[in-house]
Structure formats: structure tokens, C-alpha cells
């Protein structure tokens, strides 16, 4: 009881904090931006937060929080539009919604599917916020006891979830996570500053790759390229139809399913690193299992919409649990959230134990904002559904250049270096290939995000444990074998066992056909090549700096063994086996109107032109040519659209006081801003 009574003043104070016009208007602004980001296929929380990241610097903490929470909370609400109306997931969180939402829309019941989804989203979002409140209340005293071994165990628990994400071939997910951790190890070692897989001759890699670039490259670019290759015709799109009230009634009739799926969403969201990429599939699986009449699933069963949509908003509340409590990111977008938080105000906010201790009012303000944002988001989605539905009618070829322009700009802000764009392109290519050969991209990102905490806490925990064991066995065990830590170990072991058993049923990225042997084998060999390089490079770190080598050498060794086992499997199994998954061999390839390399060449061209003439000149040329040649719009619209894009990006740069990437031309002559 004590904890509840103590928390009530903080809860009330937090409510007072957010009830200012400035905070509310920023929350609303965040909601509007989040809805817009969610509507567009391929763009989710990572892309949205990356875009507003440069604005965070020095912003009042509450206002910055309002903007970010508003955005993150409603992406899973508006991404339903694309899933239902276009049959394309609006973000990774609503892939399962497509299965029944799109058929419903084809039967003229789009409005019913949408309103059921919005009702479920709102309910799920509120359950998530309530759970977060409750969890902070009960967990706070325990979390304040957490030391390095416990924090390490929480991170390892997150990593262990790779088993669930891995899909049909667990080893592939395992190697993908290992590769993610190795990519995160690139740069100066954290302890002795010894270089890992980099050299001072190429200073870019010394600082390592930024999450913004890896996240946008691995997740956003492959989706955008795929959509651009399909370039679906407008006539395919169904109309909204009637049935708004029917949808809400559908939700009410299935309120217990909605409740159970919301709880699934919260629980999965709590697991560090897992984030939103699987929660909708688990909820969908539950909806199927708990329905007696299964024949309508996949053909327009409303329960197949309610399940995933209840879970994907709820997971944001769950995802904030590890983020706020331990400072360990719950997902890729939460990792960016943590980074952005440090920029707010004069950097006084710090997630984790410090915030729970000193800024409980801010912690609860986040909860209130999460709840309010869900309400705002749902109201706006229903009120503006006609307008937003029209947005999905815009041909993707008309949107894609702007998305690329903005992603390139956001990526460039992370290091102010032309190499940022090269790295973005390279990560995009890796993401495309991983998607093609069904290597789990969420697993890769989890590895990337959690590598740092794992290495860091391992370092602290082992050193302190060593010092304490020197003092005596009791002091040592008291440190590493605390009741909290033993509980965490047990939970991790259980989740791995259950996860591996369940993994067969979860297709994080849908079904993938298998095809010829050569392409998947070549990709595996490239992976092995990278791992071997990482192993050789980090193993050659001189002995006095061996601490910088321990983590990458360990990860590379284990990944190498797993990758070699995969290689043996490939040699033994027939080409129809799951291990040879290749999207280009299946039906998906037939839907493509344009080839992969031809589409990618546009962006390679933008990159090349930027390195020669600088970003602004290259972008102008890119937009004009793209609209004219690829999108085939008339010269007037070509010029108007290009001008709008250029004006927008100049406005952003002016506002943030940032430069554009410079090319060879700028090193030879001095040009006026924005060209120079």
C-alpha cells in the first residue's frame, strides 16, 4: 500500500505538468506527425524519431517529451490505413492486420475494418499506459536496487529473444544478431580506444555507425525500394464504404480478445529489444487459436484485425518499461528516444534509475502523455479518415523521392559527413539482401542496439565481481547471485526454451518462398566473410588492450560456428528447404514492375551526384529526373513537385542551422548557401 500512497502526489503533479497549452499543443503536433509517418508504408517510429531528433537540442524537456511520445504512440494507429486500404503494412507493427483487413476492404467493408482497428488501438493504447503506471509503481523499489549484474542480465534477456524472432531457421536469426553486434563494435573500443575494424585513415568508422543510419538502412530502405518496385496502380484501391458503427460494435463484442491481445502486446513490449516487429503476429496467432470458426481467417475475419491492432498500441506502453526503468532500449525507436532525451534541456533528464529517483513526476508525465496521445490519435483518425484515406491513393512513385530526400537529410544530421550517406546506402543494401533471403532484420537490430549495454555492463560487472571475490567468496556471490539476478536468469532460460518452441509458428516477415541455391549461398558466404574479418581484426588487438577485444572476439567466434553449421546445412539440404529462402524466387518477384538494381540505381545516382556536386544540386537533378522519367508526370508537375521538395529541405536546413553534404565541386569553388 505504501508505494501506492507515495506515488499519488507524483501522478497528480505529472497531470498538472502536462496540462499547459504549450505541452498539449506539442503533444498534438507529435500526434499529427506520427499519424502522417504511420500512413506511409515503410516509415515507422525509427524514421519518425530520426526526423525530429535534430529539433530536440535544448528544447524544454516536457515539450520535447510531448513531441516524441505523441509521435511514437500513434504510429500503430494510423499505419492501419495502409494495411487495410492498400494491403501493405504501414509499419512493421501492423503486418498481421493486412491478412484480414485487406480482404475486408476488398469486400467493401474498409470502414468497418478501420473503425474496429481504431477502437482496438485506443483500447490497447490505454491498457498499455495503465500497465506502465502500475509497473512503475511496483517495480520502482526493486529497480533502484539494480546493479551492473542485474542490468547485464536484463540486456541478455533481450538478446535471448532473438530465438523468437529468428523464424523458421533459428540459426539465421542467431547469426543475424551476431552480425548486428559486430557492426555495433566497429570503431574505437570503449575501454582502451583500440580500433576495431576501422583505421584512422578512414576516420568515419572510428566513431562507429549510428543507430539512425542502421535503423533507417535496415528497415526503411528495403520497404521503400520494394514498394517502389511494385508501384501499385491506383485502381486497385478499395473505397472506404460504410460501417463505422459496425466496426465499433465488432470491437465491443470481442472486448475480451482485445483485452488479452493488449496484455500480450504489453508483455512482449516489456522485453528489451523485441519491440514491435513480432507482437502483431503473436496476437494474430492468439486470435486464430481462440476462435472456434477458423475458416474466415485470411478472408476477412474481423477478429484478425482486432487482435493485432489491440496489441500493437499496447506494446508502446510496455516498450517504455525497460527504457524508462533501466535505460535499456525496448526497441529500435526507443533507442533513438533515449538518445533524444539526452539532448533535451541542458541534459538533466537521464532514463533509468536516476529518472525514477529524481524525476518521478516526468516519468508519470510520460504515462499521461501516452494515454492522451492515443485518444488524440484515434479521434483524429476517425475525423480525418476520408482525407487520410485519400493520401494512400497517391502513387508511391510520387512520394518515394521525398521520403528518400528526408531520410538522406536525417542520416546526414547524425555525423555531418558525406560518408553518412554512403553508410546509409550500404546498410540499405544489406537490409534489402537480408529481407530477400529471410534473415531476421529485427534480430540484427536487437544485436546492434543491445551490444553496447551488454559489453559495458559485462565490463563493469566482471571487474567488480573480481574485486569482491578477491575479498571473499561471500562478498562475491552476494554481488552476482542476488535474488533479483537469479530470478532474471530463470526468466531468461524459460523464455529461450518457450521461444524456440514457438518460433516455428511466428513468421515475423510473412511467408517466403525458397528457390535456387546459388544466391542464398553467396549471401551466407558474404556473412561468413564479414565475421571472419571481424574475428581476425579484433583478435589482433594487442595484449595490453585485450579488454577491447573480448566482446567482439567472443561474438565473432560464436557467430562463426553458427554460420558454419548453416553452411553445412546448405550443402546437405535440397533447394526447397527453408534455409534457401529467397523472395526473388517466389510470387513476390512477379508482382514487381521494376528490377531491384534499376530501382536502386536511382539512389546510387543521387549518392554519386552528391559526392560530385553537393547535395542540393544533386537533389534538384534527382527530383526532376525521377518525376519525369520514373514517375512519368507532366513537366509542370515535375517542376512543381521538385520545387516543393527543394524548398522544404532548405527550410529544414535553415531552421536547424545545418549544412548540406558537400561534393567535389564545393572543394574547388566557393558557392553561396545552400549550394556551397
Amino acid at each position, binding site marked *: 500500500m505504501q508505494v501506492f500512497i507515495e506515488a499519488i502526489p507524483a501522478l497528480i503533479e505529472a497531470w498538472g505538468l502536462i496540462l499547459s497549452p504549450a505541452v498539449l499543443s506539442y503533444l498534438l503536433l507529435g500526434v499529427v506527425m506520427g499519424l502522417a509517418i504511420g500512413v506511409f508504408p515503410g516509415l515507422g517510429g525509427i524514421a519518425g524519431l530520426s526526423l525530429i531528433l535534430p529539433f530536440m537540442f535544448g528544447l*524544454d524537456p516536457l515539450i520535447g517529451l510531448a513531441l516524441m511520445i505523441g509521435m511514437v504512440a500513434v504510429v500503430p494507429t494510423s499505419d492501419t490505413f495502409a494495411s487495410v486500404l492498400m494491403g501493405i503494412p504501414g509499419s512493421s507493427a501492423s503486418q498481421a492486420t493486412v491478412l484480414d483487413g485487406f480482404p475486408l476492404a476488398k469486400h467493401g467493408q474498409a470502414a468497418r475494418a478501420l473503425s474496429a482497428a481504431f477502437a482496438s488501438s485506443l483500447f490497447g493504447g490505454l491498457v498499455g499506459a495503465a500497465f506502465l503506471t502500475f509497473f512503475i509503481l511496483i517495480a520502482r523499489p526493486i529497480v533502484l536496487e539494480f546493479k551492473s549484474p542485474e542490468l547485464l542480465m536484463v540486456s541478455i534477456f533481450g538478446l535471448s529473444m532473438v530465438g523468437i524472432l529468428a523464424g523458421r531457421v533459428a540459426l539465421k536469426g542467431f547469426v543475424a544478431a551476431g552480425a548486428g553486434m559486430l557492426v555495433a563494435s566497429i570503431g574505437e573500443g570503449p575501454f582502451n580506444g583500440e580500433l576495431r575494424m576501422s583505421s584512422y585513415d578512414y576516420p568515419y568508422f572510428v566513431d562507429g555507425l549510428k543507430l539512425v543510419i542502421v535503423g533507417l538502412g535496415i528497415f526503411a530502405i528495403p520497404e521503400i525500394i520494394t514498394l517502389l518496385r511494385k508501384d501499385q496502380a491506383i485502381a486497385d484501391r478499395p473505397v472506404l464504404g460504410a460501417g463505422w458503427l459496425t466496426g465499433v460494435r465488432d470491437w465491443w463484442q470481442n472486448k475480451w480478445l482485445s483485452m488479452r491481445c493488449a496484455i500480450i502486446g504489453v508483455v512482449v513490449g516489456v522485453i528489451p529489444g523485441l519491440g514491435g516487429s513480432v507482437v502483431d503476429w503473436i496476437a494474430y496467432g492468439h486470435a486464430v487459436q481462440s476462435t472456434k470458426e477458423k475458416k474466415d481467417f485470411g478472408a476477412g475475419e474481423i477478429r484478425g484485425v482486432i487482435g493485432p491492432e489491440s496489441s500493437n498500441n499496447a506494446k508502446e506502453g510496455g516498450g517504455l518499461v525497460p527504457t524508462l526503468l533501466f535505460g535499456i532500449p525496448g526497441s529500435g525507436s526507443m533507442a533513438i528516444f533515449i538518445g533524444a532525451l539526452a539532448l533535451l534541456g541542458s541534459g538533466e533528464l537521464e532514463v*533509468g534509475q536516476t529518472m525514477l529517483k529524481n524525476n518521478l513526476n516526468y516519468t508519470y508525465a510520460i504515462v499521461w502523455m501516452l494515454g492522451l496521445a492515443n485518444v488524440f490519435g484515434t479521434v483524429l483518425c476517425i475525423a480525418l479518415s476520408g482525407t487520410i484515406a485519400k*493520401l494512400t491513393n497517391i502513387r508511391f512513385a510520387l512520394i518515394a523521392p521525398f521520403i528518400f530526400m528526408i531520410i538522406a537529410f536525417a542520416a546526414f544530421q547524425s555525423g555531418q559527413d558525406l560518408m553518412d550517406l554512403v553508410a546509409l546506402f550500404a546498410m540499405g543494401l544489406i537490409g534489402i539482401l537480408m529481407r530477400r533471403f529471410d534473415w531476421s532484420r529485427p534480430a540484427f537490430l536487437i544485436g546492434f542496439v543491445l551490444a553496447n549495454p551488454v559489453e559495458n555492463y559485462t565490463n563493469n560487472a566482471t571487474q567488480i565481481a573480481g574485486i569482491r571475490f578477491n575479498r571473499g567468496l561471500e562478498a562475491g556471490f552476494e554481488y552476482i547471485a542476488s535474488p533479483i539476478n537469479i530470478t532474471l536468469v530463470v526468466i531468461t532460460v524459460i523464455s529461450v526454451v518457450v521461444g524456440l518452441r514457438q518460433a516455428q509458428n511466428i513468421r515475423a516477415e510473412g511467408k517466403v518462398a525458397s528457390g535456387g541455391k546459388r544466391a542464398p549461398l553467396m549471401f551466407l558466404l558474404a556473412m561468413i566473410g564479414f565475421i571472419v574479418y571481424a574475428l581476425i581484426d579484433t583478435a589482433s588487438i594487442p595484449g595490453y588492450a585485450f579488454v577491447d577485444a573480448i566482446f567482439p572476439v567472443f561474438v565473432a567466434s560464436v557467430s562463426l560456428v553458427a554460420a558454419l553449421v548453416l553452411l553445412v546445412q546448405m550443402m546437405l539440404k535440397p533447394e526447397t528447404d527453408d534455409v534457401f529462402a529467397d523472395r526473388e524466387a517466389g510470387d513476390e518477384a512477379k508482382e514487381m514492375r521494376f528490377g531491384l538494381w534499376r530501382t536502386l540505381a536511382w539512389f546510387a545516382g543521387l549518392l554519386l551526384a552528391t559526392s560530385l556536386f553537393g547535395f542540393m544540386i544533386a537533389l534538384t537533378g534527382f527530383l526532376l529526373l525521377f518525376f519525369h522519367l520514373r514517375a512519368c508526370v507532366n513537366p509542370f508537375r515535375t517542376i512543381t513537385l521538385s520545387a516543393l521538395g527543394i524548398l522544404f529541405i532548405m527550410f529544414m536546413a535553415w531552421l536547424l542551422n545545418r549544412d548540406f553534404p558537400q561534393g567535389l565541386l564545393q572543394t574547388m569553388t566557393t558557392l553561396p548557401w545552400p549550394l556551397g
Partner: protein
Amino acid sequence: MNRVSRVAVGIGVAASMMTAGIVPATAEVDFSGQTIEWTIPFSETGGSAKWANFFAPLLSEAMPGNPNVVVKFMPGAGSTKGANWFQEQKHTDGTVMFGSSGSTQFPYLLGDPRVRYEYNDWNPVMASGTGGVAYLNAEDASLFDGSANQLKGKTFIYGNQRITGLDLIPALAFNMLGMDVEHVMGIKGRGDGRKMMEAGESTVDYQTSSSYLSAVAPRAEAGEVVPIMTWGALGADGSIVRDPTFPDIPTFKEVCEATDGCATSGDAWEAWKGFFIAGFPSQKIAFLPAGTPQDVIDTYATAFAKITNRSDFAEISAKRLGKYPVFVGADSKTALDGALQISDSARSYVTGWLMDDFGVSLK
């Protein structure tokens, strides 16, 4: 990007400028049409960023023609990357400025092979300092009687960021006091050191003045931790005096004098003092690149003098930077010279100690 979100950004822009007051520097009318770019070799979140962001708008006001002053960040390799970059900058129109910190100075003084910059090439225009406070938990502090004599039987744990960085100062001080300190190497920042102390994982810690004031002082008031010493401040005569921000806390010099076996003379003391002077009293220095003509240097010096002479300067800077002197113009040159004067014996003492106690070789 679609119409809706573009409008949204536009609203955000307008709203943010009105309500949060983050009007970008470009909003300033620029008579001379120039933009001064002040490069900080750290990320947006560190102490150097706070320092530069504090001075940037004041400098814009004080410079003739009110140019824009933009702070740019170039983090990497513990500031070595940015400093190496600055070394290659040549004077063109006086719009390039650089801000170094103690973390830039130490590798230079220790002869780190990655250092390709030369402080003596650069032109300092402003220097300011900070201090540091070491503290113990309440239980251990009961053994502290103004000397470290009773601390000697105990083993302490200290979270150490990087022994060749600013953590050299506390590490050498503990060593001289005869304290048995186990260093947990490679923690991520002093903030992590503070957290380890809060969780009870480490048993001794130090924070720079601004972090001490904001994060540790409340705990000290509650009696959970007790400050034992500051690193002190540099007096006018070059001796170490009490830190003006913490006049009630004794300096390391006083504690050393009271402690058996700790001497405030000799190689160890000279080495500690030399590195302290390099790291704290003139920790952050603003530089113009090599080859800048004297009239440009003078313009900057005058502008910074104008800032420090403001009637409200003491008040606004105490809040954000602590109560430490700011040196401008010729004084900043003196401060820099002081910071760079490490005797060969002090340097070789420290490199020898780093090798013996930490196995660190700077080759």
C-alpha cells in the same frame, strides 16, 4: 513527405520558436553577413557543449557587426579527431573557432601517438576553468578526519573512465594518499561513476563542479555521501587554494599535508599539480587557428572582455558554469602557457606510474 506532415513541421517550427524560445541563431540580423563557426570536439550533451552554448549568443552580441555564432559538434576519439581537424584549418576570414578541453590537453601532454595537433600553433582568446569534488559514502567517511590516515586499511572501488584522461587526477591523488583503490576501468562517463556510487557498487567517486552541484550535493545534504576534498583552485601566486565554489571543503593539498606519507613537494606532487593545472583551472579554451592576424585576435579578445565585464556576468555564469575565473585576451595566453607547462620530470613520473600501476604504455 506529404502535405499533412509538411504543414505539421511548419506548425512545429512556428510553435517552437514562440513557446520554447529556441530561436535559431540565424534569426539574428547579421550586419557583416558573417557566421562564426565554433567547433566543439565533443557531442551535444557534454560539458563543453554547455560551455559553448552559454557563450555563443553572448559573443554574437559582443562582436562588432553582430555576426551569427554557430556551435558545431565534431565528436570522436575523445576530442582528438576534432583537434586534429582544427590543426589543419588555416586563417581565412576569422570565422573559424575551436573549443578544447582537459581531455584534449592530456593526450597532448602525455605524447599520445594519435595527437597530430600542436597547441602552440593556435591562438587562445578565452579560457575558463572548473573544479572537482571527491566524496565517499557516509559509512566510509566516518573514518575520514581531514586526513586519509584511517582510510588506509580499506579497499575502495572507483569507476574509472580512462586513466590517460581527466581521471588521472583522482587516481594519482588516491595513490598519493596511500588509499587502496581498485579501478573499474572503462566506464562510460563520470555519470556512470556517479550511478555506480548510488547503487553501492563503487565506494569512492569524483564529479566536476557542475555535476556535483546538480546531482551529488542533494545527496550530501541528506547525509548519504560526504565530500572529502576538492582539487582546489589556482591562486594568483600559482599556489593551490580553496575552490571558490566549495569554500568549506578542504583541498587535496590540505588533506595530503595532513596525511602521513603524502608530500606536497617532490616528483609526485609536482606531477599531480602540473596535470591539475593542465586539466582544471583552464579546462576549456577557445582558439583561433594558426596564422590569424593580430587585429582579428584583438577583436575577439575585446568581445570576450565585453562579455565578462557585463554587470550580470557573475550571476548568469555562476548558475551555468560555476564560480570560476574566465581569462580573456592576453590572460588566456598566460592560462594556456600554464596549462601546457608540464616538466619532463612530471611527465616521466606519470608515464612511469601509468606503466607500473596500470600497464598502460603510450607508444
